[in-house]
């Protein structure tokens, strides 16, 4: 009886481990392939038998993208656009989520639904009208137009996540601050925001990644290396006669690294942020 139980537990644990390894391989393999491609010579990329380990490894593609293709300019553009988007989203989103979660407000869930519905528009449907508006306002090929659009796209997510986060803070904290003489703005800035830092890190990162990866609006509203962001830049690598897989892979690895580093730095906060309120503390 005991033997069969421990055998079953061992089998179960093995199956679980195998499944976990498979999932990790499934998720990481494309990225590893990308890294491998970034360091392979062009002739090996089209060889009959591809190899995971580059031999001989080469830094040609990295030199290419930063030298010939001035990839650093795209990175600067993306950093400005995504960074501003994240900061503005957090500032506006925090105020909105605070009002919805903590102040006496009628029909808060109606308002939240309307906010959510904004993110449900198919993006392709709003490109043309936004293009006309941006052209009329003289905002074509500026950071501003991208930031405005990304903030609008990112806000529903930011507001909903922060709303959920703020709701986990006991209401008595607000009341204590009110008794201490804090008005709504002071309450938000001095009490709610510091208490919600993990939530801010999580949502800020989500907004940043959304803006960092966005392609369609960036392609439609910018032209030229001075304003184009990374996804558009990588797409521009391809010309009529040739797809430079090595350069594309190298660029992809370079732009993924900041995200990986950010996530690793804030890992503790992110996990705390995503699980906050799941259990009673």
């Amino acid at each position, binding site marked *: 009886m005991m033997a069969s139980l421990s055998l079953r537990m061992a089998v179960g644990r093995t199956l679980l481990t195998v499944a976990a390894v498979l999932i990790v391989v499934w998720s990481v393999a494309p990225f590893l392939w990308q890294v491998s491609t970034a360091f392979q010579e062009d002739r090996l990329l089209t060889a009959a038998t591809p190899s995971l380990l580059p031999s001989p490894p080469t830094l040609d593609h990295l030199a290419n993208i930063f030298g010939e293709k001035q990839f650093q300019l795209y990175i600067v553009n993306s950093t400005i656009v995504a960074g501003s988007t994240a900061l503005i989203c957090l500032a506006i989103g925090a105020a909105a989520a605070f009002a919805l979660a903590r102040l006496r407000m009628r029909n808060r869930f109606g308002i939240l639904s309307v906010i959510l519905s904004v993110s449900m528009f198919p993006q392709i449907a709003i490109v043309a009208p936004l293009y006309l508006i941006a052209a009329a306002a003289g905002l074509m090929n500026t950071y501003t137009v991208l930031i405005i659009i990304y903030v609008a796209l990112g806000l529903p997510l930011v507001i909903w996540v922060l709303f959920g986060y703020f709701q986990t803070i006991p209401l008595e904290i607000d009341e*204590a601050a*009110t*008794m*201490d003489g*804090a008005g709504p703005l002071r309450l938000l800035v001095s009490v709610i925001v510091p208490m919600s830092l993990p939530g801010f890190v999580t949502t800020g990162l989500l907004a940043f990644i959304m803006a960092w990866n966005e392609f369609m609006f960036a392609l439609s509203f910018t032209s030229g290396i001075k304003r184009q962001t990374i996804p558009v830049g990588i797409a521009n690598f391809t010309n009529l006669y040739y797809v430079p897989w090595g350069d594309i892979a190298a660029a992809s690895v370079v732009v993924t690294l900041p995200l990986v580093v950010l996530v690793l730095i804030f890992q503790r906060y992110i996990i705390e942020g995503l699980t906050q309120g799941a259990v009673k503390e």
Partner: protein
Amino acid sequence: MAAVTLKSVSKSYGLAKVVHGIEFAIEDGEFVVLVGPSGCGKSTLLRMIAGLEPITSGEVVIDGQIVNDIPPKYRDIAMVFQSYALYPHMTVAGNMGFALKLAGLPKAEAATRILKAAEILGLGDLLDRYPRQLSGGQRQRVAMGRAIVRDPSVFLFDEPLSNLDAALRMQMRVEIAELHQRLGTTMIYVTHDQTEAMTLADRIVVLNRGCVEQVATPIELYTRPANLFVARFIGSPPLNLAEADIAAITADSPRSTEIVLKDGTKLTVDCGYERLSVGQTVQLGIRPEALLPADDGPIAGRVQIVEPLGGLTLLHVRLDGGDTFIVQLTGAAGWRLGSPIRLKAETSGVHLFDSAGQRIPQLPDDVALLARRVGAVS
């Protein structure tokens, strides 16, 4: 310091009325406890005094000023919350000084006040700690410190001890009593724990379903409960109750009233009552400590449960008529389960209530007589 007066204060949530025209006055420097079962409206009332809950109708007057529309921060009151509601990202000093910072107090003066409050509460060594590094009792003290530093005219406490364990609760209860003696500030305290209410209060307001049942000193509540609700709510173990009829009334001195329980047991008390007539059905209430074993006692029964508490012993006695009475005896008398017992009742612990549950008062000169007797005993 300030007096607080409530005039016909009501609160409704939509159609549901939860507080019904409450009216009482709290004197300057008084310690008043609002007590009642869950959902009786005591916390709502406190929050209306604090300004955290809008008042539907009526007036709250603090220090002579109607404060209905005045925001909490201008009411000169401080509140201690059940969950402490400390700011987790601020140190003890930060928590205590937050209100002072918002009030624009110079840093030096704020620091002096924080140090003084910390000294009163024994928090001197903990000023740089964060709430998560403190024990429950220490957090509770910080919450009180946050109120003290503001030097308010009124302190409000919303069940401040209910998150603490029994031993700590007792200790903090004493500390709050000492704090009141030391500061002399008006304090309004909400609790559902009658021991807290009895030990801390100058006066107690007993609330039930959004109405005031009685406002009185602790002893008065215990010895002259206005109605059945108060009689049952105040006192532990609770009042023994049984339905009874009035068999005879002797109006001449010495006065006496003969009460017959449903099982035919006759009980005679040596006092008279206002508006009582022979044949009237009443609720008889006897305090557990007013029941004494006596060989010639009129109440007969058997010991069902013995609860030795050390200094006291509680006997659950099943009467021959079927009712169960709890008897509280001093000492650890050797009662056994099932042994027969006869009891007599001290008149001072006997209360009569009419069919509407209202107290039937004793005649005034008997009240004075009983009070003298109780005084002599104690």
